[in-house]
């Protein structure tokens, strides 16, 4: 077994979905990828939201940049 495979298997318990009400199987691999990627995408989205707010403030367009502004 490659080292990366070993590390992934160690990670599995931390990413397993356990929503008992879901009728769909979210898929282990899909959840792991989603959680890892979303951390980065969420940060980028926050920066993007602030950037838009700043551009909006400077150009005077739009009172708020995004309804989904960072909390």
């Amino acid at each position, binding site marked *: 077994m490659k080292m990366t*495979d070993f590390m*992934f*298997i160690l990670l*599995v*318990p*931390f*990413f*397993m*979905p*356990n*929503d008992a*009400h*879901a*009728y*769909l199987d*979210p*898929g*282990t*691999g*899909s*959840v*792991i*990828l*989603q*959680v890892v*990627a*979303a*951390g*980065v*995408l*969420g*940060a*980028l*989205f*926050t920066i*993007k939201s602030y950037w838009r707010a700043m551009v909006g403030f400077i150009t005077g367009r739009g009172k708020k940049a995004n*309804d*989904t502004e*960072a*909390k």
Partner: protein
Amino acid sequence: MSSAATSLQQQVPLASSFRDRSGFLFKRDGRLLRQVNRSFAAHYDLFISSGLYKELTDSRLLVTHLEVSEQGATADAYKVIEPLLIPFISFPSEWSFSQLKDAALLTLDLQERALAHGMVLKDASSYNVQFLNGRPIFIDTLSFEKYSEGTPWIAYRQFCQHFLAPLALMAKCDIRLNHLMQLYIDGLPLDMTSALLPWKTKINPGLMLHIHMHARSQSKFADAAGKQTEPVKVARMSAQALRGLLDSLKTTITKLSWLPGGTEWADYYENTNYSDSAMEQKKTLVSDAIQRIRPKMVWDLGANVGVFSEIAARNGAAVLSFDIDPAAVEKNYLRGKQRDLPITPLLMDLTNPTPSYGWAHEERASLEGRGPVDMILALALIHHLAIGNNVPLSRVAEYFSRLSGHLLIEFVPKSDSQVIRLLKSREDIFPDYTPQGFESAFSANFTIVDKKSVAGSDRIMYLMRSRAVAV
């Protein structure tokens, strides 16, 4: 027999409504009803009380419904609702590129709006979107559940399989790969999509992440769940991370594009030998026939970009505008978005129409199973079926008579340049392909109500009434 027993006999659960245990659709005495199960009561109540239902229906993104006092179909019923009826259920494999793209963006829009109300979409099936009067609309009222802060999006995999994968293949490989959606009822397998997509899609950040890496992650962890013996911890991701994920999906899908053109029929009206006056007369014949029959719904078969569909729609009919060519359907759809007309363009190969598929061949109905319709238009079509595809005229007549109560059909004779073109490179094995042969074949299944020549051409327009479908 008790009234309850009678009622049970008259109600039929829909064959397509069994996957989700939150509730189900059933028909009772011809009405379409949806039962909300007790287990889903809290989610349904939040959906209404949070204002999400009102926002979505006011924006025409979700079908409206009425809560009715009907008895449920089972003892598990919390409420029974009667949703707005969609007159024709279409499937993702029948949509053009922009229709599937709009359905994908609608799903993401609903998810974002749901999140703002403390809710989330618990599934992301493309079958939950339908086209009503040419616009995409969400039909599954029970897809919204309470959002629990920190949980990942359960439907992420399904969204990628149902929307992103077919759109990427259509945009980056071949537009005809939409047909794969008929073969894979829960969306396209991501490993297959990843293998089919060109290498250069790996430098597209969205496709790299949501298709290629996603497929790799699925394959790596395919057996991981079964190997766990310890109780598992919950995967956590913040609401902002979820918003970032949705934004990334939206950006990836928005950037996918396909330009119609270069396919067989896209420039058809520029290349016909119809004179302007003959075209105008043909339009008048169609308009007169629609006004005479007054159909609620029309299927325009071989509709191309929908010129005659528009005439039917302007005369008060809801129209499904079928064509085999993805470019024609795409153009028809994009044109329709600018007009407010009840036309839904759909992809259909009449020589191999959508069969019934899914569980027990019942989950998704065939084209015929979704009929019959009040009236069919078959204009400039018969030569493609009878000569281009060798279907005997009697078989065309028999099939059409099962599909519709009325038929407006144009006979295109051998002297017509379009037929000459079809016969140029092959032997003429169609001795019966004459107006007399045509009338004789169709008379077995139809009563010919009217017959008019199209001025300036050798074509003949027939209005017929089916013997098989009561009108």
